[in-house]
Structures are given as structure tokens and as C-alpha cells.
């Protein structure tokens, strides 16, 4: 192989059943802070995104690791591939990691993201989620949308990549009350189920 040829990416493997719990620190599931001791960002509406991860038969997927990534309250990313990164919220991390408990439950603390204009089309407000677990040999990726942005959702290029409206509706979280004045949104991930209930996942 000549030295100018691209290198093939390393092959994926599962995290297996024993991803260390000692890797998790309090606040890892909080996207609003740059560090556990940092103040949360002051920009945007604080929200909770929570739900369950379910496997075949509807049982809980225990000890799954979820990673979340999203834009800030202005629809920006603090990353050089965002042409507007200079205007991004300097106090918002936008990334978090959670693991599922014995009931398959996870929870993220974040802010309501804003949409943005992308070359692929106008992005509605969304959160990208990755699922890692024993038996998932390559992470599963999907995107969570919000019910209040119905018009924007109908134009989102990633929702439109799904062939049917029924599938698109499955990627919209459900508003689920409040906790301490913070709105909660519920999003369950059905990793394997009947065709009418399985969560749509995308090619990574």
C-alpha cells in the first residue's frame, strides 16, 4: 500500500457487558456544564430528556451507554466545522453521557436546542443520540425531535430521510410534565421490536 492511500478505519466492537461504572462521574449526563463544578449555561430553556432503552420482548436494556450531542440555544456548535462557531455559547458543552439502570432508564439534563440552516436543508431543533451496549457491535445512532416545532420538523432533512410519516413521529419526544419547573421530554428507544414500534436508527 502506498503511503498516500487512505487508511481503513479501525473495526468497531461492542463495549461488552462490563463498561466501567467508575468511568461515570456525577454530572456526566448534564450537557449544560463544561465541567462538573462549572455553572450551567445561562442561555436557553433548561429541559430534561429521559426515557427507557428496551430490547427484544420489551425488557429493559440494562447498562447501556447513551451519548448525546446537540447545538446550543442559538443553533451553533463550538467546533471549527460550524461556520458560526465564533457565536456559539462558550458555557454550553452540548455533550453528555448516561448509563441505563436496572429498568433501562436514562436521563439527560440539557437546554432546548435551536435549529439551524444546513447545506442539506433547514434543521429543526434536535438532539443526536448514540447507543452502546453489550451486543451492539457498532453504535446505533438516531435523532430526537421536539413536538413544539411541528412545522420545522416537516422540513428537517433527516426526518425526511425516513420513508413514512409513522416512522418520523417515532423520533419526536413526548412532552412529559415538569420537574422543579423544568420541562421534561420522554423518548424511549426500542432497539428491537415489532415493525410498528421499533425506533428508526440511521446508518452511521
Amino acid at each position: 500500500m502506498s503511503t498516500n492511500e487512505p487508511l481503513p478505519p479501525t473495526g468497531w466492537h461492542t463495549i461488552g457487558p462490563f463498561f466501567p461504572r467508575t468511568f461515570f462521574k456525577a454530572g456526566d449526563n448534564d450537557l449544560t456544564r463544561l465541567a462538573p463544578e462549572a455553572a450551567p449555561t445561562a442561555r436557553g430553556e433548561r429541559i430534561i430528556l429521559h426515557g427507557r432503552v428496551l430490547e427484544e420482548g420489551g425488557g429493559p436494556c440494562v447498562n447501556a451507554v447513551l451519548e448525546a450531542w446537540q447545538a446550543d440555544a442559538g443553533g451553533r456548535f463550538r467546533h471549527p466545522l460550524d461556520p458560526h462557531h465564533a457565536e456559539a455559547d462558550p458555557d454550553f458543552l452540548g455533550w453528555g453521557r448516561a448509563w441505563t439502570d436496572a429498568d433501562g432508564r436514562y436521563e439527560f439534563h440539557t437546554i432546548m436546542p435551536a435549529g439551524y440552516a444546513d447545506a442539506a436543508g433547514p434543521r429543526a431543533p434536535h438532539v443526536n443520540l448514540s447507543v452502546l451496549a453489550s451486543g451492539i457491535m457498532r453504535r446505533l445512532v438516531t435523532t430526537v425531535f421536539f413536538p413544539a416545532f411541528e412545522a420545522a420538523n416537516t422540513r428537517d432533512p433527516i426526518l425526511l430521510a425516513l420513508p413514512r410519516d409513522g416512522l418520523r413521529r417515532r423520533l419526536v419526544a413526548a412532552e412529559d410534565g415538569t420537574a422543579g419547573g423544568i420541562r421534561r421530554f420522554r423518548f424511549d428507544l426500542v432497539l428491537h421490536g415489532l415493525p410498528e414500534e421499533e425506533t428508526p436508527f440511521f446508518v452511521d
Partner: protein
Amino acid sequence: MLTGPPDCFSPYDEAGQPQVPISGYPNTVRRHPSSLPLFRRPVTRTELTGPLDLTPKLQPGDSNLAVSPDGRHALGQLIHISGRVLDEDRRPVRNAVVEIWQANAAGRYFNPLDQRDAPLDPNFIGNGRALTDGNGDYAFFTIRPGAYPVPNSGRWWRPPHVHFSILGPGSLSRLVTQMYFPGDPLNVHDRLLNSLPDLAARERLVAREVSTEEVDGEWLAYRHRLVLRGRHATPPLP
């Protein structure tokens, strides 16, 4: 202004990636979508970007797994694992978060979910986290993990392996993998390693033994390269 060219993240070559289901590993069915193929989506800014400053959150510093915080040595063959994290264009990926975890010398994990009747080592937790340096290099001191039978799946054994998780410069460059040891007789039978159809791709998951003089002679030394997905894509870090 930097923008990612449309071809900077091409689809994976499936021959070089694990194919499921895997016989004797029922979670590869129970936790994998039955609606196949997965849906194709356009790549937008959310997928191209990712967190570049995770160290306040995922703090590095545990790069010596072989010695406990109070200075006691773990049981097992002392080894040193080092290597470079590159993108597909062979550019070093700097400041990537590299996490490893592994079983102890008896093949048992510290994790409370590992209920196998093999001894725990009080001086071995078996996980570490480091950042790649200016050359994209990482390094860990640890012990060679033991093999173990796969729980609840009949009788098959995992060869000694080290789990790796790498958070690179964008969401699409995320990598979770396992590293194997050269010459281990269990490697050719491993159902996870064999789930990669391409033999060369399997061989790239096996580390290379190098001269111990690179690590002052006290540790058996292995080199292991990790290639993250992405071309022309590794952005300059702030």
C-alpha cells in the same frame, strides 16, 4: 472559514466492520434493529461536529493501571500499550480522549456485573483514560488480561483483549473497539474478531509486539494503531 467537503466521511467498508448476528451472542439479536437496512441520512453539521474539550468532564490521568492509587502492584504480566491515533489521511489526531478497560490477570472484571467465580485482584481496577499528545500518541501501563468464558452463552472463550473507546474531533469519528494480543491461540476462534469479514481488518485489531527497550525493559511492550473515520476532516484544535 472551514467547511467539511461532502466526501470527508464516506460510508464504512462493511467487510472491515463487524457483521451481526453473532452465533452464541444473543444480545447481537435482542439489541439490534430488525428493520434492515438502517435508514440512510444526510450528513449535517450535527454529525460533522463534536465536543473538542471533554477533559474537564472526562478527566485523564489514569494511564498506569498496573499500580493501585496506594502504590500496590497488580498481579500479572506487566505490559505497556502505546500507539498513535490517526485519521484516514494518516494525520495524527491530537487531544483525543482514549479510554481503556479490561479484565484482570484471572480474566475477571472489577465490574459488579461480572459474577464469574474467578479471583478479583484488590490492586487492579482495570480502567484508564488518557489524552493523545501532539503526535496523536497514547500510552498505558497495565497487565496482560486473562481469557474468560463468555457469560450465559454456552462454552466459548474470549481471548485476552483490551477495550478501547476513542472520542475524536467529530461525532462521526467516534470509535469503540477491542485490542487483541499477537499469537494468542484463542484469537482465531473468537466470534467477535471473526465477525469482521475481512481478514486484514481482523489483523488490524491485533497489537504488534515491539522491543521492550522502548519502555526501559521492565514491561512487555505492544504498539497498537487506531484509525478514526474521517478524511480532510481533522480540524485544528483551539
